[in-house]
C-alpha cells in the first residue's frame, strides 16, 4: 500500500455567508441606486456564493463624497497616534478572524487554503500592523518635516490576492491620513466586504473606508471622478495604461502595479533542490495568478537536463484540487474567462512548436481547472515567452553565459521581478545589479513582507508598495 493522503477539508462552517451584499459607503451597507447586482461564484465548484451589488457612477460619487467628508472632518485632522490605534485594531481583528477569512478567500478565489491560511492572511495582518506603526512617525520617513496626506484615494485591486491587495492599498493610505474608496475585483469581492464589517467592528469612523463592488465600469467611474486625488491600481498593464491616459493632465497622482513576465535564472552552480522548489513556488504558487510569477525559466545549458528532470519529478507530487483541502498545492483557476486565456496561450505555445508537458493529474469535473504545465523548447520569439499568461504555465529557455542570461531576462517590456539561483555571491550581486526589475529574489522566490518595497520597472508600472517607500504614494511633499 502506498501513502494516500485522505481528504483533509477545512470546515466551511467558520464562514457565515450572506445571500447578498450591499456597497459599503459612509460606514453602512447600502444598495446600488439603480439596484443592479452580480453574482460571485466559487471557481472550484461554480457554486454561486452570494449576490453582490454593482456600483454605478452615482454610487461611486456617493462613496467619494463620503470619503471626502471623512477626510475633511475626521481623518486628516486626527493625530497620527489615534489613527494608528484604529489600524492596530484592524490588524488584531484580522488575526482573530483569520481562519474564517482564509476559508472565505479560498472559496471565492479558488486558491488553496494552505496558501490563504499561511501566506495571505498572516501577511494581511502584518501589513496593517506595520503601517499602523508609521501613522505617528511620518516625519521620520524622509519625506519632509510635516508630510501631509494626499486626500481621497481611489483604489482598484485584482482578484489574485483579494484581501492582501486590499491591505497593501488601505493600510498605508490610512496610516498617512488619507481616506479611501476601494473597488475589489468583480470575481472576488467577498473578503473586501468582510473587511468592511471589520471596519465596523473596529469602530473606524464612517467614510474613512468605502468599498464599491463592480467591474470595469465601476473602476472607470472611480478613476474619472473629479474629487479623487490619487489612484492606486493593481492589475493588467492594458488597464494601467488606460488609467494613465485618463489621469493625464489632471492633478491626480497615480501608482500602478501591473503585469510581469519574470525570468527565473538558474546557474549551473545553483543549490538545485532549492532551485527546483523556487521554480515550483515561482510559477505554481497561487495557480500562477501572480504578477511577479517566475514564468520564464532561464536555465544554464550545462544543467538543463538535470534541472528539467528534477522539475518534472517534483511537479508530479503537486496536488491539484479542492482549494479547501489542507493538502492541496494548486487550486482552481479564478474564472472561466481566465481559464480561456490560459488555454488559448497554451495552445498557441504548442502551435508555435514548443513542447508541452503536465504531470498526470485528475482534475475535478466542475469548476475551472488547469494542470501545472511546462513548455520546453521555447525561444524568446514565442508568445508564451513574451505575454503574461497569469496561470500555472512555465516556459523554459536556456542560456550559456551570465551576460546572455541578463540579456534574455531583460528582453521584455515588463520589469516587475526576477530570480537568480547560484552559489557564487559575487555573481548573484552582479546579476541583481543588472536585472531590470523592481524585485530580485536571489536563491528564493515569491517572498513578500510589509517592510519590503514591491513594484515594477518599465511597463510593470510605477510606485512602490510596502516599506518606507510605500508611504510616498500617500503623502504630499
Amino acid at each position: 500500500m502506498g501513502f494516500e493522503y485522505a481528504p483533509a477539508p477545512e470546515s466551511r462552517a467558520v464562514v457565515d455567508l450572506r445571500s447578498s451584499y450591499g456597497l459599503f459607503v459612509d460606514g453602512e451597507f447600502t444598495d446600488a441606486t439603480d439596484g443592479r447586482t452580480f453574482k460571485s461564484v466559487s471557481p472550484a465548484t461554480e457554486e454561486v456564493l452570494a449576490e453582490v451589488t454593482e456600483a454605478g457612477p452615482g454610487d461611486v460619487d456617493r462613496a467619494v463624497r463620503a470619503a471626502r467628508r471623512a477626510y475633511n472632518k475626521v481623518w486628516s485632522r486626527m493625530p497620527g497616534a489615534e489613527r494608528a490605534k484604529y489600524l492596530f485594531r484592524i490588524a488584531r481583528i484580522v488575526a482573530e478572524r483569520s481562519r474564517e477569512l482564509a476559508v472565505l478567500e479560498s472559496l471565492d478565489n479558488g486558491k488553496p487554503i494552505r496558501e490563504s491560511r499561511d501566506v495571505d492572511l498572516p501577511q494581511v495582518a502584518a501589513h496593517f500592523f506595520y503601517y499602523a506603526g508609521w501613522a505617528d512617525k511620518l516625519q521620520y520617513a524622509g519625506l519632509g518635516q510635516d508630510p501631509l496626506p494626499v486626500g481621497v484615494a481611489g483604489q482598484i485591486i485584482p482578484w489574485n490576492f483579494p484581501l492582501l491587495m486590499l491591505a497593501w492599498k488601505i493600510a498605508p493610505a490610512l496610516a498617512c491620513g488619507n481616506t479611501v474608496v476601494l473597488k475589489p475585483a468583480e470575481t472576488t469581492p467577498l473578503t473586501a466586504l468582510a473587511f468592511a464589517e471589520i471596519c465596523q467592528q473596529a469602530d473606524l469612523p464612517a467614510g474613512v473606508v468605502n468599498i464599491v463592488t463592480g467591474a470595469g465600469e465601476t473602476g472607470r467611474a472611480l478613476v474619472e471622478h473629479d474629487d479623487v486625488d490619487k489612484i492606486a491600481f493593481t492589475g493588467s498593464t492594458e488597464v494601467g495604461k488606460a488609467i494613465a491616459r485618463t489621469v493625464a493632465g489632471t492633478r491626480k497622482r497615480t501608482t500602478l502595479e501591473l503585469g510581469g513576465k519574470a525570468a527565473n535564472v538558474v546557474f549551473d552552480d545553483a543549490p538545485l533542490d532549492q532551485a527546483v522548489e523556487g521554480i515550483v513556488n515561482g510559477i505554481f504558487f497561487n495557480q500562477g495568478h501572480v504578477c511577479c510569477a517566475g514564468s520564464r525559466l532561464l536555465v544554464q545549458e550545462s544543467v538543463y537536463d538535470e534541472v528539467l528532470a528534477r522539475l518534472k519529478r517534483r511537479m508530479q507530487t503537486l496536488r491539484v484540487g479542492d482549494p479547501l483541502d489542507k493538502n492541496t498545492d494548486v487550486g482552481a483557476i479564478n474564472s472561466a474567462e481566465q481559464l480561456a486565456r490560459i488555454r488559448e496561450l497554451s495552445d498557441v505555445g504548442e502551435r508555435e512548436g514548443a513542447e508541452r508537458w503536465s504531470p498526470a493529474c485528475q482534475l475535478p469535473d466542475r469548476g475551472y481547472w488547469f494542470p501545472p504545465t511546462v513548455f520546453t523548447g521555447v525561444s524568446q520569439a514565442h508568445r508564451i515567452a513574451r505575454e503574461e499568461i497569469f496561470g500555472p504555465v512555465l516556459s523554459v529557455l536556456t542560456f550559456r553565459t551570465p551576460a546572455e542570461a541578463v540579456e534574455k531576462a531583460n528582453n521584455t517590456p515588463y520589469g516587475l521581478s526576477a530570480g537568480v539561483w547560484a552559489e557564487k555571491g559575487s555573481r548573484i550581486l552582479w546579476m541583481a545589479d543588472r536585472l531590470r526589475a523592481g524585485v530580485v529574489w536571489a536563491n528564493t522566490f515569491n517572498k513578500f513582507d510589509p517592510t519590503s518595497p514591491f513594484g515594477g520597472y518599465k511597463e510593470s508600472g510605477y510606485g512602490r508598495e510596502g516599506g518606507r517607500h510605500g508611504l510616498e504614494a500617500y503623502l504630499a511633499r
Partner: protein
Amino acid sequence: MPAESRRVDVRKTYKLFIGGSFPRSESGRTYVVEDAKGRFVANAALASRKDARDAVVAARKAFGGWAGRTPYNRGQVVYRVAEMLEGRRAQLADEVARGEGIAGKRADEAVSAAVDRLVWYAGWADKVAQVVGTSNPVAGPYFDFTLPEPTGVVAVVAPQDSSLLGLVDVVAPAIVTGNTVVVLAAESRPVPAVILGEVLATSDVPAGVVNVLTGKVAEVAPWLASHMDVNALDLAGVEEPAVARDLEVAAADNLKRVLRPRAESWDDVPDISRMLWALETKTVWHPIGV
C-alpha cells in the same frame, strides 16, 4: 569708423548636440533665434522627429556605461562640468541676458546659480542611495535591501523662461543619478543650451549622456513622448496645459514616468524630488544561512 572698414562678426549657427557630436538637423532646417527685443541673435538647428530619434538612440547607447560608472565617478564628472562652466561664465551671462532680456547682474546671478547647482548635484551622486535606500527588516531569515537605480533614457522639455539655470535644474538631477538625457532646449532661447552642450563635449561627460535638441516643442516633444525606448518624460517647459496633457497621454503607451509641469522658481535651491522621479526602486532578497 566707416562701416566698410569695420570688422564683420563671425556669426555662428548653433547646431544640435547628439551622441557627443554637433550635427545639423537631418532636415537641413534652421530657425532664427532672436533676443528679448526681437533682434537677430543666431540661427539654430530646427530639430526634426528623426533628430529626436537619433538622440534617443545615442542616449540609450550611453545609458549602460553611464549607469555603470561608480557614483563617485559620476559626481566627479558632473563637478567637472561645473568647473568648465565657471570658465565660460562671461559668455553665458551675455547669452542669458540677451535671450531672457534681463540685466547683466541678474544674468550673472543666474549663471552663478547654475554653476552652484551643478556643484550641489555633483555631491549628491554618491549620497542619494544612502538617503533613499533602505535595509528592510523582513520577518524571516533574509537579507533584504532596497536601492535606487536610474530609470534609463529621460526626455526633457527644458523650461522656457530660465534658459540656463532652469536647464541645469532639469538635466543635472537626471544625469547625476545615472540616467541619460535628451533635452529639448527652451524654444526661443536655445543658445545657452547649445553652449552647455559645447561645455559637455569638452568635459568628461561621455558621448550620448546628454543630448541637446533645439526646435519646436509642438513638433519634437510628441515624438519623444511616444517613443517606446524613452523611460521618463519631464514636461517642465511645456506651458500649454492641453499640450502637457496630450504628451502625458502619449507617454502612457509604454508607461513612462512623467513629471508634470508645475509652478517652480528655478532660483530656489531645490529639494531632491527631481532626482527621485527618474529613479527606479529595486529590492533584493537573499536568504541568510550557513
